[in-house]
């Protein structure tokens, strides 16, 4: 019986709806029309294209032919001395933005002082302002990169030349190192040779010579004695011979014969020999030899002593020299290593592409939703907003009409519980909302949107329809007239729309607003749909929360009608 009553209620509401042209339009035509308009709008909406279409003033005060090639901006030349004009035009909204190139712009850049462009933005055009700012920043970044790359490339060239010089220095140092090693070897050889020189032997030899000399001296004394004897003998002999010869001469050589000349010569020789012999002092020479024993032989001994001292000093000096040479070689080694390190470092540095030094980090954007239209991104919001507005208007008006017409009162007089009565209203409104949702989805599919009609999506849509319809029902139970219902619906729906994250992300909102926004029915609905459609996930918890809120609103509605079934 109760089921029959329910069906009667549904049929009655269906008849009422179908006989009310305005409501039919609201239920069927409005969602179709709104979805169609928004779908057409969003399917061709592109921030990039929009930025390319807006007029941007170009004020070049530098007049050095600077240009922003490749900029996706519709530039409008503002002529010379346009600084004030540009600002004014932006303030008046004649151009969406103005780029000002200051005087000396190029020169300052070339001199390495840096410069800055001025960008006036019409911030009232939020979307395009952001797009233009991004475009200009991208251009400036590209410009900075180009300047940086040029500068570093030049520096790299110079460093590479320097590096080549360093390579040569390394070669030379290596040669010096080799030379040092040679010197060291030679020094070492010298040292070794010096060490091999045996002065002790020389000293012993000299001593032996000394002894030999003494023996000679002794022998010489004997010889001297003998010589003196012989000398005396010869002298006497000569002294005897000369008078004889003279006499012979005098006697025989009056007539100057040839033999006399030879005799005379012989006498002379004998006289000379005698004189020589007399003059000769063998002992003196022997004494000289003896004297040599004490001087000539002591000198070399002393010299050898000095030589030993000198050798030790030289050896010490050579050791120091070797150490110095080693240190020198080691230093050369270290310098070579240092230079090689520097060389490698320079090679390493100069091998780096200046482009990646200036822009070491680049952003490789991977879009979570590749090649999707703006319409697709907006689809969940579109469905939710259309359902919200139409749902609120229809359901709130339906209840207000029932209450104002007194039919709610008459229904309340019948032996049907208010809870059941309201429940059947919810069922009817839910069916209406589902029809609207179907129409919206069909329109979106006609625009090429591939909506997966899976269990999650259908459940989310059902929960959303229920939530918005019960919310409208609740409004209808509070207000007194259709106009009030309409206004209240708007007053609730508009802030919900702005706080739902459709237009502004929660992160941009003050914390309290973001918190409120996150709890609103539209936000719940939007997040549930986005989860399924955009993120290919499921948010069953969100759906359960929506159902919970719907039940709560239903209970409130029943209470409100029970309290005041008629206006």
């Amino acid at each position, binding site marked *: 019986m109760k089921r*029959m*009553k329910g069906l009667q*209620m549904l049929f*009655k509401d269906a008849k*009422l709806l179908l006989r009310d042209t305005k409501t039919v339009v609201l239920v069927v035509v409005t969602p179709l029309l709104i979805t169609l308009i928004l779908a057409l709008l969003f399917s061709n909406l592109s921030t990039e294209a929009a930025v390319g279409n807006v007029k941007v003033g170009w004020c070049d005060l530098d007049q050095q032919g600077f240009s922003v090639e490749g900029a996706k901006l519709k530039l409008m030349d503002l002529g010379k001395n346009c600084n004030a004009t540009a600002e004014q035009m932006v303030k008046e909204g004649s151009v969406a933005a103005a780029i000002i190139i200051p005087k000396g712009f190029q020169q300052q850049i070339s001199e390495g002082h840096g410069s800055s462009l001025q960008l006036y933005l019409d911030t009232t055009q939020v979307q395009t302002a952001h797009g233009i700012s991004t475009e200009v920043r991208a251009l400036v970044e590209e410009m900075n990169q180009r300047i940086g790359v040029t500068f570093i490339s030049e520096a790299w060239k110079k460093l590479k030349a320097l590096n080549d010089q360093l390579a040569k220095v390394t070669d030379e140092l290596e040669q010096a190192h080799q030379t040092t090693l040679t010197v060291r070897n030679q020094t070492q050889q010298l040292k070794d040779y010096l060490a091999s020189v045996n002065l002790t032997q020389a000293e012993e030899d000299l001593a032996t010579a000394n002894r030999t000399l003494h023996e000679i001296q002794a022998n010489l004394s004997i010889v001297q004695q003998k010589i003196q004897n012989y000398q005396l003998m010869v002298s006497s002999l000569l002294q005897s011979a000369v008078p004889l010869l003279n006499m012979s001469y005098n006697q025989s050589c009056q007539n100057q014969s040839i033999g006399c000349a030879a005799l005379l010569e012989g006498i002379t020789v004998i006289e000379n020999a005698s004189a020589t012999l007399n003059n000769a002092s063998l002992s003196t020479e022997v004494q000289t030899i003896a004297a040599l024993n004490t001087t000539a032989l002591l000198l070399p001994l002393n010299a050898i002593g000095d030589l030993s001292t000198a050798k030790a000093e030289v050896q010490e000096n050579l050791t120091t020299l070797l150490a110095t040479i080693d240190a020198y070689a080691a230093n050369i080694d270290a310098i070579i290593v240092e230079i090689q390190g520097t060389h490698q470092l320079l090679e390493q540095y100069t091998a780096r592409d200046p482009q990646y030094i200036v822009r070491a980090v680049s952003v490789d954007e991977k879009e979570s939703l590749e090649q999707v239209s703006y319409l697709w991104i907006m689809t969940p919001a579109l469905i939710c907003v259309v359902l919200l507005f139409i749902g609120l208007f229809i359901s709130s008006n339906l209840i207000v009409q029932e209450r104002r*017409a007194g039919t709610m*009162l*008459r229904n309340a*007089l019948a*032996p049907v519980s208010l809870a059941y009565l309201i429940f059947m209203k919810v069922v009817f409104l839910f069916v209406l909302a589902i029809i609207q949702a179907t129409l919206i989805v069909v329109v979106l599919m006609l625009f090429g949107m591939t909506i997966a009609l899976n269990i999650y999506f259908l459940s989310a849509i059902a929960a959303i329809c229920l939530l918005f319809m019960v919310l409208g029902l609740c409004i209808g139970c509070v207000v007194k007239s259709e106009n009030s219902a309409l206004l209240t619906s708007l007053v609730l729906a508009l802030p919900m729309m702005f706080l739902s994250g459709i237009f502004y992300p929660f992160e941009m909102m003050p914390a309290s607003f973001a918190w409120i926004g996150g709890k609103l029915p539209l936000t719940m609905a939007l997040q549930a749909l986005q989860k399924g459609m955009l993120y290919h996930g499921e948010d069953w918890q969100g759906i359960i929360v929506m159902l919970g809120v719907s039940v709560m609103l239903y209970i409130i509605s029943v209470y409100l009608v029970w309290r005041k079934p008629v206006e």
Partner: protein
Amino acid sequence: MLEVKDLTRTFKKFTAVDHLSFSVQQGEIFGILGPNGAGKSTLMKMLTGFLEPTSGTATVAGVEIRDKEKLKRVIGWAPQEDCFYGKLSIVENLQYFGSLYGVEDIEKRIWELVQALGLVDKRNALAESLSGGMKRRLNIALAIVHSPKILFLDEPTLGIDPISRMALWDVIKDIKKQKITIIYSTHYLTEVEQLCDRMIILRRGRVVKEATPQSIKKYGKTIEEAFFNILKNETDERTPDAV
């Protein structure tokens, strides 16, 4: 059929109905009169279960007014406003509300009603297209579609032309013939004279006179004058002829 005992309803400090007591017999048409703010509507709402009394009791056809579910089955209420769906025809309205009451053989009942209330010709017309008088008749038809034991009529002739009003009187008289008790709230004293068996006059939530239409005529040359005089010499004492 209706027993009211010390029925009181206050709204904060304002007492709309103040210890009312009266009774109505089966088949009677019982008028409730009084100036605006006398407490007529509050009394009607309490007797039809829409408003909880602050104190006192009332039984309607043996059902205590606080037992709302049972009360709904024994009462019919035709408010002064048209309480039906304008986009449904007379028959559809009757079908719908009849089904809510679980009326058996609803088609027969509807035919009886449209005949009795003179709505046969317009039975398939949308309710919103009916004349004022017909709308009131439909309003009453809807109130009695489930054959209640007591019918509350709240100024049923308000705003309709005299001919329609007189036609409606006939309808009410016919309902009375069906032994349905009628509680009739009105400002029109002529109606009371024409229709009511008995009546009470309310002022500031209290009964100032309980009488028959004939018996109050002694307070004035006409019933209007009598009514005026009664209210002028306001007293809550019931005169012997009232009982």
